[in-house]
Every structure is written in structure tokens, then in C-alpha cells.
């Protein structure tokens, strides 16, 4: 019965199809309608009535591609190429703003200087001048804390996605670490208190005695914490440990006191291998992502030694050896090392204001519009000032 229904219409189809093959109907651009995602609206129109599609008809003159397709095409090009093609037209310019490359891209290093931001690609060895950003600050507040020293803040990723913020208070700090997820803040007692098991305290035992630097990295849905160890305060970094942060996210709902509740839920799992990923350590933002076909080595950590930010070193997670990495030839004035994924514009911490009254909150401002990139004047002193 069903078969009959279908077959019965076939002769008509044949005739129509043949006509189409012979007759080259004049072209009607239908792209604009097609690419709108609102399917229902499209189906409201009456078939065959072209007056119902004024957009279709009016666009038949122009051959410009619709913005979303332009975007998808540009995503297949390298960043410099995509950026340069932003001059084609306004549509293309808009599409470049959403550049989000497909496939392997080499990581870029952000160079922050007054008024300008430059990007260095490890592979292309080119740099870019990014326009002066406009920052607009949604902000989150840290829980009450007295701080007298510098604050060093790390973002695991942009605050739009699952994101942790790690604040490390140096000098006279109380040794607390602060984690923020979305708009929620978590505080983890780290160094001094071992009673909140399991917590960050545990991870210290994996490292030998010595100076440690911490890096917080978001890798897909995982949060990694990397510890870089030196033998003494002035010595070179000679070892790394990578931990995966595991936490019970079911507690995230509890808005007000979540950080206290979360405390016992955080645990650190040692990561033995990064597999096809590599980690790029920066002073502010670090990255971890697959490096196949990017010209970078798998299962490695790219880093610089303190005080020498021109030469990169590579720590192999497999054999624990450190070898020379790329030297991008930065000038000595280079101050800040920020790895970013090409095309991912940074959301940035804008200010840390130190409260005059003890016990008041330090204030972190987070920018929240895209594309945004901060210059170094916009960054809090405690973050980018390095020895």
C-alpha cells in the first residue's frame, strides 16, 4: 500500500526532473533564507509563491556569501589570512570577529605592552597588533580576607565556561587558594591546614621540598593544576607535577556558602601522561590542548625559566627531561607570557583593588564581552609583574 503510494507519483517526478535537467532556470539566491535557523518560519511560507520571499529575490543581485558561511570558510584559514580577508567587506569583517579556527593551530603567545598587544605564533613566528580593547566589567567578589602582599591570580579559562580562578597570596598571605566556578567562588585551604581531607594539601606531598609555582589550566572539561618545582628560590625550574582537579559539581547549586561545602569535595589526581596534549605555561593564562600537526611536541610542558623569558624549554612528561624549545626571539623588554589559543579572545581580569580597611574584600573585575583583550595597563599589578 505504501509502496503503491510512492510509485504512483513517480512518473510525474520523472517528467519534472527531466525538465530541470534541460532547462537552466535562472538563479535565485536563497541563501539568506536558508541559513536562518528558524525552520518553522520558513515553512510558513507558501510554496511556489516567490512573493513570500522578498529576501530571496532582493539578494539575487549580490553574490556575497552569507555571514555564517563566510565565518565557516574563514575558520578553515590561518589566523593571519583570515584577519587580512576581513578587509573584503563589512560582512567579512564581522565574520572575522568570530574567528574560531578548525583543526590544528599552533598556540600563540600574547605580548602585552602599553597600548598594544602582540601575538606570536610558535609556528608562523608572526605577531599581530590587536586593537585596544574595550573592557566592561562584570565582577565577582572574593570572600573576606586580609591581604597585605601581592596577589597572583590565574584563570583556568574564560569565565563564560566552566572556569576556575586561582588566587595565590604571597608574602604575608594566609596561604589560601580561591577557586571560582562560573559566578561561584570556592575557597580551599591549602598549605597550612591538613584537616580538610582531601584537599590541595595532599598534592604537596608529591613534590620534593623546594619552591613551587602553580598554574591552573582548563583542558576541555578538566581542570589541571601544574606545579613547577625548583631546588631553591633562585634556581631553575627542574621538575613538574600535573594534577587533575576532581570535584563534585553537584554542589554548585548552593550559591551562598558553596565554597565551604566544596572544600572536602576537591581532590587531586596525579596525571602521568598528557597523551597527545601539551601544556603551555604562561604567567597569566596557560593552555593545554592537542598538539598533533601543530609542530609542538606531545606529552610535553612548554615553559620558560624565571628571569629568562626569551628561550623556551620543553619538559617531557615521559622521560622527565628538559630540552630546549622554540626561541621566538623576543626582545628583553618582554614582560608577560600569556598563551592563548588563536581566535579565542581573552576575557580578562581587570583590576584588583586592595581595600584600605583590613577585612574588606579585594575586588576582582572580570570583563565579559567578546572579543576582548586587555593591555597590560588593564591588568592588575600583582598578576603581570614578574621578576
Amino acid at each position, binding site marked *: 500500500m*505504501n509502496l503503491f503510494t510512492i510509485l504512483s507519483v513517480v512518473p510525474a517526478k520523472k517528467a519534472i526532473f527531466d525538465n530541470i535537467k534541460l532547462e537552466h532556470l535562472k538563479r535565485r539566491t536563497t541563501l539568506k533564507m536558508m541559513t536562518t535557523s528558524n525552520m518553522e518560519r520558513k515553512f510558513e511560507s507558501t510554496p*511556489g509563491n516567490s512573493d513570500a520571499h522578498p529576501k530571496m529575490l532582493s539578494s539575487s543581485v549580490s553574490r556575497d556569501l552569507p555571514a555564517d558561511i563566510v565565518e565557516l570558510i574563514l575558520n578553515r584559514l590561518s589566523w593571519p589570512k583570515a584577519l587580512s580577508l576581513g578587509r573584503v567587506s563589512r560582512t567579512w569583517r564581522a565574520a572575522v570577529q568570530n574567528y574560531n579556527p578548525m583543526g590544528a593551530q599552533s598556540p600563540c603567545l600574547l605580548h602585552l605592552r602599553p597600548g598594544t598587544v602582540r601575538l606570536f605564533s610558535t609556528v608562523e613566528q608572526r605577531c599581530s597588533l590587536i586593537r585596544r580593547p574595550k573592557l566592561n566589567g562584570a565582577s565577582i567578589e572574593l570572600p573576606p580576607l586580609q591581604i597585605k602582599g601581592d596577589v597572583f591570580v590565574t584563570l583556568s579559562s574564560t569565565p563564560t565556561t566552566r572556569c576556575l580562578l586561582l588566587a595565590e597570596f604571597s608574602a604575608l598571605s594566609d596561604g589560601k587558594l580561591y577557586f571560582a566556578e562560573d559566578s561561584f567562588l570556592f575557597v580551599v585551604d591549602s598549605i597550612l591546614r591538613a584537616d580538610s581531607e582531601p584537599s590541595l594539601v595532599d598534592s604537596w606531598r608529591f613534590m620534593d621540598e623546594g619552591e613551587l609555582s602553580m598554574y591552573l589550566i582548563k583542558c576541555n572539561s578538566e581542570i589541571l593544576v601544574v606545579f613547577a618545582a625548583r631546588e631553591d628560590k633562585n634556581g631553575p625550574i627542574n621538575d613538574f607535577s600535573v594534577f587533575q582537579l576532581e570535584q563534585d559539581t553537584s554542589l554548585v547549586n548552593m550559591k551562598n556558602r558553596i565554597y565551604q561545602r566544596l572544600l572536602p569535595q576537591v581532590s587531586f589526581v596525579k596525571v602521568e601522561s598528557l597523551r597527545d596534549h601539551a601544556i603551555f605555561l604562561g604567567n597569566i593564562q596557560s593552555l593545554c590542548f592537542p598538539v598533533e600537526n601543530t609542530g609542538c611536541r606531545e606529552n610535553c610542558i612548554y615553559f620558560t625559566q624565571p628571569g629568562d623569558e626569551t628561550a623556551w624549554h620543553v619538559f617531557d612528561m615521559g622521560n622527565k627531561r628538559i630540552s630546549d624549545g622554540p626561541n621566538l626571539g623576543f626582545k628583553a623588554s618582554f614582560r608577560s607570557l600569556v598563551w592563548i589559543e588563536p581566535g579565542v579572545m581573552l576575557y580578562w581580569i581587570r583590576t584588583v583593588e586592595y581595600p584600605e580597611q583590613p577585612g574588606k574584600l579585594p575586588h576582582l573585575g572580570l570583563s565579559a564581552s567578546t572579543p576582548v583583550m586587555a593591555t597590560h595597563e588593564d591588568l592588575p599589578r600583582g598578576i603581570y609583574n614578574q621578576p
Partner: protein
Amino acid sequence: MSTESKEILVGESSQAKPEKKTIVLMASDGDEFVVDVDDITNQSEMIRNLISDMGGTDGLQVPLLNVTAPVLAKLLELFNVSNKNDDDEEVTQKVKELMEAELNMMIDVLGAANYIEATSFFDLSCKVLADKFKGMSVEEVREFLNIECDFTEEELQQIHAENAWAFD
């Protein structure tokens, strides 16, 4: 074309293989195309989802109100090429040829593929265009697509200043 007997069942071929399930795609101008279910669902996510939502293919007619008959015919023809070949080489070549010969048609086909969520074909077509643009200057892209530069002189200078590094 011999390829059509597989993709678009017409006349005897459909009777010869009555076990083949088909659905009808309706172009914007009302023209109807009978297509093999397997062949089309192999390509189009939208139609695959539609069939699963409808709970079957019986007497299914899919109106594609934004796709004209010539575009749909061309798209189905390219799907045939894609379905017949395991690798993308052949169909990439066909898309390239179409781009060079009839750019307008190619862009329409691209939009239609996007519309019916023919993801892999769409990706492939985007890549063909991306490869084309890779070696082109801004002016050449404008000329190729017949796009007017709609920036003011000031804006152009500003963009140039921002992107200065890219043109070193």
C-alpha cells in the same frame, strides 16, 4: 546519467527494486524529487532527524522551501558522487569544477547543504572555497565573489593599522 538511477528513483528503476524506500523532497518551486532514503539520510542530518521524528518514511514529503529545483538537482547529483565514492576526492573535484563554472550555483548548493544539514558535504564545500581564498588577495576575493567594498576610507585605514603585521 547513470548515477541518478541510484539516487533518484525514476520510472522502471524504482519498480525493479521495490524494496528500496524512498521519500519525496519538494523544491521551492513545487518540483518533487524522489530520493532513496538511505542515500539521503547518509548525507542529510535534518532529514535523518525528520524521519526519526516522524517514525518512518511512509509517504513522507519534505518541503525544502528555500531550495530551488535546479539547486536541489545539483545537490542530489553531488550527493550521488559522494555516496558512490569512499573518499572525498571525486566529489571535491566536482565541487571545484562547479565553483569554477557556476559560482552562483555552487554558493546556492552550499547554502542548501547547510540548510538540510549535509554536514560532511558542507564542510567539504567550505574547504574548497577556503582553499580557493587561501591564495587570493582581498581584491581578488572581492572580484571573485563580485562583492563591493563597503568600507569608508577611514575604516580601511583603521583596519590596515590594526592588521599591519599581516601584510608585512
